[in-house]
Structures are given as C-alpha cells and as structure tokens.
C-alpha cells in the first residue's frame, strides 16, 4: 500500500474522530470512535466496511474548498482497492485489479474463442440440448476447476485480510450479524432508511440499494439454479435439458432477469454519480465488471430462449465464455468486493461485541 495514501486516510479518519457528526450513517463511524490511533490494518478494515454511500461526504463541513479537504468516501475507496491488491493470491495477479476493464474484455474473447474451438473439435456424437454441442463431462472438466481454484484463492486472500485487520474469533452471532447487514444492505440505508447519496447529489435515494439487491439476489438464484442442476444430474440421474417447470429453470430464469435489471440499473446510476467520490482510477474496471455480469445474465437468458435452434452452436460458447471470465476473475476484480465486504462486516461485528 502506498505510504502517502494510507497517511492521507489516517489524517482524514483522525479528523472524523474529532467530529463524529456522521455516527448514524453507517458502520464506519462507530468503528472509528472505538479507537484513538489507527494502524494500517485498522484503516484497511474501515475501508472495506465503507459501502461508498457518500452520506458523510455531503454532510461534511470540511470538504473542499475547506482546507481540511475531507473526501472520506474517495480515500477509503482507494485504500480498499489497494488492500485487495495487497491481499491478492497469488501475489503476481494483483496487478489485474488495475486493468480490470481490459482484462475482462480480453478474457471474454479468449474464453469464448477457446470454448468455441473446443466445442467444434470435441463435438459429441449424441446428446440433447446444449449437450448436443458440448458434453457434460467436458463442461465439468473446464468449469469445476475454473470455479473452485479462484474460490480457493479468495479464501487465502480473506484469511490474510482477517489476520491483517485483527479479526479475532469468528462466532455464529457475528456471522449472522454480517449476513443480516448484507441482506438488508444496512450500510446503504443512510441510517434513516431513505438510502444513500449516490446518483443525485445530496438527495437520498434507495435506487442503488434496490439495484444492488436485485443483482445480488439474481446472482444467488443463478448460482442456486446451477447447483440444483448438479444435484438433479448426479443425485437423481435427471439430465438437462430441463423444462420450464423444473427447479433449475424456476430459479435461473427469474435470477437471470433480476441480474439483468440489477446490473443495468447499477451501471446507469454509476454514470450519474460523481466519480471523484469514489476511486476514479478504477471506475472503468468497475463498470466493465458490471457489464460482464450483465453479459452473463443476458446471454444465459438468450441461450434459453434459443433452445432448439441452430443459434445454440455459437450462443453456448459466448455464454460459457462470459461465465468462465467471471469465475476466473473473481479474486482479481470487483467481484472480490462481496467477499471482502462480508468479511469486514464479520470482523466489525466481532469488534463491536468485544
């Protein structure tokens, strides 16, 4: 982490600790008041606790042109971004964070092309639905490691994060608290329920909270859809394609629609919001990530709609290509924020209870 950046974060947080007007907005400020001196790990934890709701910025009497020049959402966004790089594993991949936009685009193209080539070369003799284009065992051979290895990398990063911020013992109660905060997006509520200051200056709005939850719920439903398919396949010998009234489709179709709506909404809000209250350098990468999620859900829906047509031959590699890019970049893109945020919320719940 750059010493200048962490020193600037410390300067700002110390001013906040002498003021404390923002205590009711989110979890960051009560966490600040529990301390008097801030180690690098403390600032990293505050940064990952911050949801960039910006309530504190618009309420602050010390923002520019005041000489104290506070912009806490921005400095915490920058520390947050740096902290993900610092905890990335393997370390060499950390720089991918800085080039998210380009990397995402490139990876989609490469994985799509690769899957297309593989599908062409190893096209099965028989099979139904997309298995007519790519066999189940081939898909598993590609996606099981592509899913599990990045997840393991995330696990290692989180463990290092936990040590760095002094997370302490993890209990059921702290985990429950963190999941509840996530389910309600408590830290985007503004403390009063009217939401945050994102797309319309100092006016509060719940739009970002709703779109984020649509995205999260959509993602969870899509994940559940795939999982249910796996269970049906291995547990009950029921193989795809599944009809509309099957579990994978009943979870997946609404999930895909929610994911489309949520990501489109988030991208729109992002174009309205003031870039200087986040980390401007990573704006493009974050936008690319939202676009990737949108592409995953949209191609998934289109693929389902195209069932039985010849378009499946190229739609399948395109959809799987975006999914593969998403999986592979999970530890090195904005996707990581969910894992870090949840971990930070757990650490915070523990510190509050201590």
């Amino acid at each position, binding site marked *: 982490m750059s010493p200048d950046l962490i020193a600037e974060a410390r300067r700002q947080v110390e001013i906040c600790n002498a*003021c404390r007007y*923002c205590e009711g907005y989110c979890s960051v400020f009560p966490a600040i008041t529990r301390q008097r001196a801030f180690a690098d790990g403390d600032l990293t934890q505050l940064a990952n606790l911050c949801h960039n709701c910006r309530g504190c910025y618009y309420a602050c009497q010390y923002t520019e042109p005041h000489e104290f020049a506070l912009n806490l959402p921005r400095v915490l966004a920058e520390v947050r971004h740096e902290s993900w790089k610092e905890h990335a594993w393997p370390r060499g991949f950390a720089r991918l964070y800085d080039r998210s936009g380009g990397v995402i685009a490139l990876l989609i193209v490469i994985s799509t092309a690769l899957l297309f080539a593989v599908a062409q070369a190893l096209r099965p003799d028989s099979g139904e639905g997309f298995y007519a284009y790519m066999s189940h065992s081939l898909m598993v051979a590609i996606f099981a490691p592509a899913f599990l290895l990045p997840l393991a990398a995330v696990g290692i990063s989180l463990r290092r994060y936990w040590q760095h911020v002094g997370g302490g013992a993890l209990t059921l109660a702290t985990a429950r608290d963190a999941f509840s905060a996530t389910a309600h997006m408590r830290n985007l509520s503004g403390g009063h329920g009217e939401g945050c200051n994102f797309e319309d200056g100092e006016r509060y709005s719940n739009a970002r909270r709703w779109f984020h939850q649509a995205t999260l719920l959509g993602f969870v439903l899509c994940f559940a859809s795939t999982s249910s398919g796996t269970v049906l396949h291995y547990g009950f010998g029921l193989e795809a394609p599944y009809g509309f009234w099957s579990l994978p489709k009943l979870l997946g179709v609404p999930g895909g629609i929610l994911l489309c709506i949520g990501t489109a909404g988030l991208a729109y809000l992002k174009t309205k919001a003031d870039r200087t209250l986040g980390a401007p350098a990573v704006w493009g990468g974050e936008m690319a990530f939202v676009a990737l999620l949108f592409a995953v859900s949209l191609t998934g829906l289109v693929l389902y709609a195209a069932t039985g047509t010849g378009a499946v031959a190229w739609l399948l590699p395109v959809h799987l290509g975006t999914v593969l890019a998403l999986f592979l970049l999970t530890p090195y893109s904005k996707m990581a924020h969910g894992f870090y945020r949840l971990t930070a919320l757990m650490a915070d719940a523990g510190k509050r209870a201590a």
Partner: protein
Amino acid sequence: MDHSPDILIVGGGNAALCAAITAREAGARVLLLEGAPKPYRGGNSRHTRNFRCMHAGPQGVLTGEYDEDEYFEDLLKVTGGKTDETLARMTIRASEGCYGWMQAHGVHFQPSLSGTLSLSRTNAFFLGGGKALVNAYYLTAQDLGVEIAYEAEVTHLDHDGTRIHAVEANIGGERVSLKPRAVIVASGGFQADLDWLADAWGPAARNFLIRGTPYNRGTVLKDLLDQGIQSVGDPTQCHAVAIDGRAPKFDGGIVTRLDCVPFAVVVNKDGQRFYDEGEDVWPKRYAIWGRLVAAQPDQVAYAVIDAKSLNLFMPSVFPPVQADTIEGLGQRLGLPGDAFKSTVERFNAACRDGAFHPTELDGLATAGLEPPKTNWARPISEPPFYGYELRPGVTFTYLGLRVDEGAQVQGAEGPVENLWAAGEIMAGSILGQGYLAGFGMTIGTVFGRLAGEGAAAYVT
C-alpha cells in the same frame, strides 16, 4: 430573478431556511439571498449538531422528559438572568413542536453522539450534523419553489421610519435593487468582521480564531442599527471558547475543540499558570477558558499533560506536540525553559495522593499552590509528555436586533411594518450572556418559523 418577491430573506442558514419554507408553504413568493458561495452555504448552522428541545416524555431520539421550568432554569444559569423571560419561555414552549416540523421537512435525527451522553435527554442530534440539516432544508425549499441565489450579499435595507421599501444587494458581483413587500433578516452576527470585533473588544480580538463562517460580517445588522432600529445584547461581548491554537482562522468548527484542560497544567507564553484548571467539568468551563486565554499575553496558552491522561478526553484534530522530557516539550512549544520547568515542578510537588475520577469532581486538589487546581490534580510525571496550544475561538456575538413575540423587528417608534428577524441576528434578546448547548438552533428554528408566518400573513 424576481426583483419584487413577496418576501425577501436575507441569509441562508437554519433560521433563514425555516422562514423561507414556512412562508412559501403559506403561499408567498419567496427569494432567499445567501451571501456565501454554495459550498459554504448555511452560515454557522453548518457547524451545529443538535437543538435543545422541550418534551414531556421520550420523543424520537430524546430520552426522559425535559419540561419548561427545567429548561428555563438551565437558561437562567448560563445567562445569569440576562434573558427576556417572556420571549425565552415562548421559545422553550415552541421548541417542542419543532422536532416533528423538522422531520417533516427532511431533517433526520440520530441518538446522542458518543462522548455526549450527558445531552441525550435535552438535545436532539441531527444525523450528519448541521450541514446535513442545511442540505435537507435547501432541497425542501427548492422543491417548494423558493428562489435561491448564492454569493448574494445584501448591503442596504432602506428604512423610511415605518417600513423597508427597498433592498440593495450585490449578487454575483452585480449591484441589484430589489422591491420586496416584506423582508426577513436572518444573516447572523458580526463575529467574522475582525475590525468590528477589535473595536468592540480591543486589539487583542485580532488574534482570536473564528470558529464558524467567514461570511457573518454583520453588514445588515450594522446597516439597520445605523438607521435607528432598536438593539439588544452587549455590543462589546462575544462568546469565545478555548480551542486548538492550530485551528484555521475561520471555519474550524467542532473538531478544533480541546477537552484536555481538566487533566492538564495550563501555562501562558511565559510558562506561568493563571487559573484553576480543575474548577469544574469541562462542558461547564470551556467558555470561561476562552476569556481566560484571551486575557493572556498574545492570547495564547499551552495545556500540558502526561502519558496517563492522553486517553481521557476526545481525540484532537491535530496530534499533540510530544516530547520525552518536560524541558524538551517546553522547547518544542517555544516556552521559556526554566520558568516552565519550575512551574511543572511546583505543581507536581503540590499534588497529593488520593482517588482520581476523570468523569466527576473528585476533589483531588493541590495543596499550597496558587492558583490551586481543585480537581483531577495529578503530577505531570509520566513520559511522553504532550502539549496543546490554546487560543480563544469566537462562536458568536451577542449584539442583535430587538424583536417582539412575533419576531417582528422594533424601530425607534414601534415595530417596522414589514421587517422580521430570526436566528443569531436577534438571539441576544434571549441569550444575553453565556451559552446553552443547542439553544442557538432552537432560537433559529422557532423564530425562523414565526418570521415566516408573520411575513406571509402580511403579504397574503
């Protein structure tokens, strides 16, 4: 811009906004002129954090009850009787209804901030502080159709003996003449005009820091007083507290406060003590220390603590000056070495054994020391040692316009027909001396609403 609005509001802080919203809701066409540029809008309201509210039982974030008599007693204590009982009691009673009105117009409250539990019964804290409140009111006013101009300084109100018939202003660098049917002045005190402050207080005032907005220069106040409007409040006095001497000249706000004095030895630039640091708990003494420091050479003092006291008070905005020896600390603070050292030694020798209780008057006093320290007297002996520079920080001035119970301004021959006042510019009527936490915002809200109602009734 509408040059002939029904109501012109001079100022853009809490009182001005309450008046604008109230008048607009009553159907008047309202133009609000804020002297500051937009990022600094809101006057001193942007630095506030709560308002003092009467209530019969738990209400929202307020705990317990706080009745009219207790509230008035609290006011009497701080003002030493320098208040107008009728106006004060009227304000106190009206404060009860403000809570709901404020919420209905966009203000959010939060439980008492950490470190301010003593105020949880009497004061309702604004979520995000005063700037969040000001933002909420601007949005509400805008949505209602109040016309707002920034960098709009009113220079003259033309008073012909019975009414204001024209208003001169400088808006975005252009001279403008306005013909409103009624005017509400809510443009604060004069504490940012250092020349005026020096005239009133003496040349030492030039060394004072101004805790709030640099835009409260009292232009309209002076203009009206020059035209024979009745004044209230001591023209020579200002409310000053001891704050961090490294604070900016203007607008340092809340973070520049320093709560270390009760646990410190405080010396002037000659290294001499000059007052009992442990006379009472800090919330009851910080204002006295503003005057005490103002009376010292160069209007500066230094509070010195040792390692065992560092965590007993709210963190400071700037880190303290630190050294491992008293001599070293004296050097870093620029104090005369021998005098400072012997002051600390004499103080340490006068400390006695006893139980130390940081949060209450513990009676742990020095023996045979002049001046004594009557509570929390522990030797400054455990390195590292820490020093904070203290200077007087002016919060507000007391001189203002006389108003009646309807917020109407009083001329030489009775009320000015179409002129109302609210906020700091008239607060001296009620708060003639001292300060009661959160009462400024109460006065601003109550009189802002009254002025808005009165002016709207006059024009509609």
